[in-house]
């Protein structure tokens, strides 16, 4: 994967976050994606979300597999470690890293090919394990790096740039994640940063796997008439089910007031997500309702976006396995080696 070093220009007047970093400090290498690629907008949203959350860059790890989406981990947070692994296997590498160091913030970036085809199994099992991470699927319905084949998220009847029609049914990561018991399920659109940034911030604070499917049009291979993952189609068919505002812990939390259209969910770290219910009666903590709404939208040819489901009480991988609070990587050898006396006592059992 290619990247070009971006010149670091400092503007003294730039706004600083709680750590004293400017938004520029959260940028990375220059993107080598096609001009207008939806993924670059997602990257920009991530930069802003991480800046606003004042994440210490060196305490975050950017994880990815292979594909256009996976390249984007190089394009933000240059002072964070990044891991561009193998195709479809980002979830297992992140699982291992998280097992070793539970205190880092893991940002996994994947695509529809990476997560819904070659890596579908890993995607599902990372959700089952509820690995604490932000899991983004930059979803464009197409294989960009190999020049335009349909992916597993392409809709039936959707046409390719070459004019072929997709005949196989799509896999919807949102419905799949809901079925698998995901504790945070959202969908955004790369063209709607205002909606996306609070979702990303909430996902980064979630105590478990936060799955965000982002419709991110491919300007080169899948932004034409007939594509259901184009800017035009998404803008016209986007239905915001519940919009979210994210309130980090350190900021004063404003009472939702009497407006019944707003509900709040408190995250594990004390920060708060406020939902503006744009859809009457929508309850983002009800898995069955979330599933039904997304399906209903689908049948009306609409794309349900927003924070669709959240369960902040789900146990993450470490809670399930009851691992110590100290990251395993910080345990000393003395804490890990039982020593010869214990070995000799054990040896008696083999006599």
């Amino acid at each position: 994967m290619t990247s070009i070093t971006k010149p670091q220009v400092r503007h003294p007047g730039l706004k600083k976050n709680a750590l004293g970093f400017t938004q520029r400090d959260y940028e990375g290498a220059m993107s080598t994606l096609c001009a207008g690629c939806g993924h670059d907008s997602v990257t920009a949203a991530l930069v802003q979300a991480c800046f606003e959350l004042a994440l210490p860059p060196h305490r975050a790890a950017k994880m990815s597999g292979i594909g256009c989406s996976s390249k984007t981990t190089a394009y933000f947070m240059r002072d964070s470690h990044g891991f561009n692994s193998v195709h479809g296997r980002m979830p297992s590498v992140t699982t291992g890293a998280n097992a070793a160091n539970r205190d880092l913030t893991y940002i996994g970036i994947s695509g529809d090919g990476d997560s819904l085809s070659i890596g579908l199994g890993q995607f599902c099992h990372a959700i089952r394990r509820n690995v604490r991470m932000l899991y983004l699927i930059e979803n464009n319905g197409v294989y960009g790096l190999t020049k335009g084949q349909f992916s597993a998220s392409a809709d039936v009847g959707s046409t390719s740039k070459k004019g072929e029609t997709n005949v196989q049914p799509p896999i919807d990561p949102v419905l799949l994640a809901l079925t698998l018991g995901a504790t945070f399920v959202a969908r955004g659109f790369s063209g709607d940063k205002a909606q996306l940034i609070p979702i990303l911030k909430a996902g980064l604070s979630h105590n478990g796997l936060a799955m965000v499917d982002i419709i991110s049009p491919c300007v080169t291979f899948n932004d034409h008439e007939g594509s259901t993952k184009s800017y035009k189609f998404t803008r016209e068919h986007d239905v915001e089910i519940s919009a979210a505002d994210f309130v980090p812990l350190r900021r004063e939390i404003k009472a939702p007031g009497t407006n019944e259209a707003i509900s709040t969910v408190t995250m594990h770290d004390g920060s708060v997500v406020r939902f503006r219910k744009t859809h009457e009666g929508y309850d983002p903590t009800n898995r069955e309702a979330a599933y039904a709404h997304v399906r209903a939208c689908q049948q009306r040819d609409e794309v349900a976006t927003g924070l669709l489901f959240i369960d902040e009480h789900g146990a993450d991988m470490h809670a399930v396995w009851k691992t110590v609070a100290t990251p395993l990587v910080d345990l000393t050898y003395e804490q890990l080696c039982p020593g010869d006396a214990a070995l000799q006592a054990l040896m008696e059992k083999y006599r």
Partner: protein
Amino acid sequence: MSGVNDFAFRMATVNGTGSASSNSLLMQAIFRMGIPVTGKNIFPSNIQGLPTFYDIRVSKDGYTARPQEMDLVVTLNPSTYAKDVASVRKGGYLLYDSSWPLEPDLVREGITILGIPFGKMCVENFEGDRNRTLLRNIVYSGALAAFLSMDMEVVGQMLTEKFSKKKGLLDANRRAIQLGFDYAKSHFECPLPFHLDHMDATGDSIIIDGNSAAALGAVYAGATVGAWYPITPSTSLMEAFTSFCKKFRTEPETGLARYCIIQAEDELSAAGIAIGAGWAGVRAFTNTSGPGISLMQEFVGLAYYTEIPAVFFDIQRTGPSTGMPTRTQQADLMSLAYASHGDTKHIVLFPCNPEECFYMSVKAFDLADRFQTPVFVASDLDIGMNDWMCKRLQWDDSFRPDRGKCLTADELESVMKFSRYLDAEGDGIAARSLPGVHGHGAYFVRGSGHDKHGTYTEDADAYQEVVDRLARKFRLAATAVPAPEIHTVPGAEVGIVSLGGCHAAVLEAIDRLRDMGIVADYMRIRAFPFDAPVRAFLDSHAVTFVVEQNRDAQLRSLLAIETGKPRDEMIPVLDYGGMPLTAMSVVSAVSGHLPRPDTKRSPRKKRKVPA
């Protein structure tokens, strides 16, 4: 050739009927009588209802290879009667359940047939089908105790230890063992000509399987993340690691785990988890067998090229494909040494028994950290799952893990531009930085082409600079891996090379060959890559045999490729049917290649040998 403390016997039973535990009880009782003993469980890839065999060899001389012939066979599975009768050596004994008649055509001349109505005795003495089935194993154990003059006090003590918390079971087992013992004593002449007699030859030994020992090594090495997918014969390694961790790694104040064991969705994921954890800075491993190794290839290449430590235990079984999952082989050698596409080479360790599984497990983690690369431990089903008598394990409390070049926050503070793959010290090993330690250490791991700074490249020179350093690093590893074990005898013209679980049989074969006048030197390969002494040994003998358990002479190929020794100058001795190697198969292969010596028991001097 049997005699006191020198014989072998076999229990032929049906799997899933509880015979495994009574068989290991017999083995352990012999061990506690101070007599060297070996047990080989030859079981089917099945849970219940198929033939299973357990061979016990008693050897006052301490030979632990699989026995060549059976002095006594206990046949309790009608479906294998014919095979069992045939497996008794001439002049040996067959013990069968006389509750039902033995087919007349199974009666064989030249062996003694002993009948005890085990089934009937159980029906008369115990209640319930399950109890009767389980206790039949204990009744035949009692009979064997009488036939073989086993110390009944030792047996009683073992039952007490085993059932100390289950009074009812203890009483039933005691009665069962006595029933068998008394019946044999009162109906037959006991003991048989070959039998047991107390020795003092097991004082500093233990009985342990290789998978438990390897798991214990992982605990002592400080490994904290284990990822796996169940597969025979490697499963018991992670099960043992789990139980050792529960025992030794539970935080006293909180009861929380100082480890994380993840049963993954497949072997690809297991490899990914181990590599992710290794990247994040802990000691991590996965355990698998051949099919899993095939699935892990892509990840192994990633870890090799991005230089991430992880340990892979391959408990080899009979391939190719699914092969015979409950049979042993050493047929993954080539696929481990060069695992993954592109130019890749890996460190592989070859333990020869459970004791070495423990120490090599620790070594594997040190090598993985020091050389920042995947390290394989190539065990096999025979070593991994069978109970072996070996030296009691020891631990040096002054041991500290070699974590290799891993930069601390303080060290990184003064680093202005971190270059992940820079050979600063000229030894081919670049310093690494762990995520979360310091912003100055941040870099981008990529399996795609990269230069010494870790930056993406498609430039020929920058690419080559990195892969050439990897080759240098690998050459350095040859000097750091366990050196071969070499036994030389003055005047030996024959060289025998072997590895892993063949060791016990080869050592015994060398003794037998010497009896025949063939004096052989021996080199046991303990690791890949090979260092200079390996080639030197190959060059110092007129004729060299390479003993291994695969069809295609894979060790010989590795030796030829890596040392330059012409392949045809090494004679392959191959045993690949899935059973543990016997000394006799080595003896006949080696002696068959050589002209018969003129006189027996004389050291061979200037005798011509074929090239």
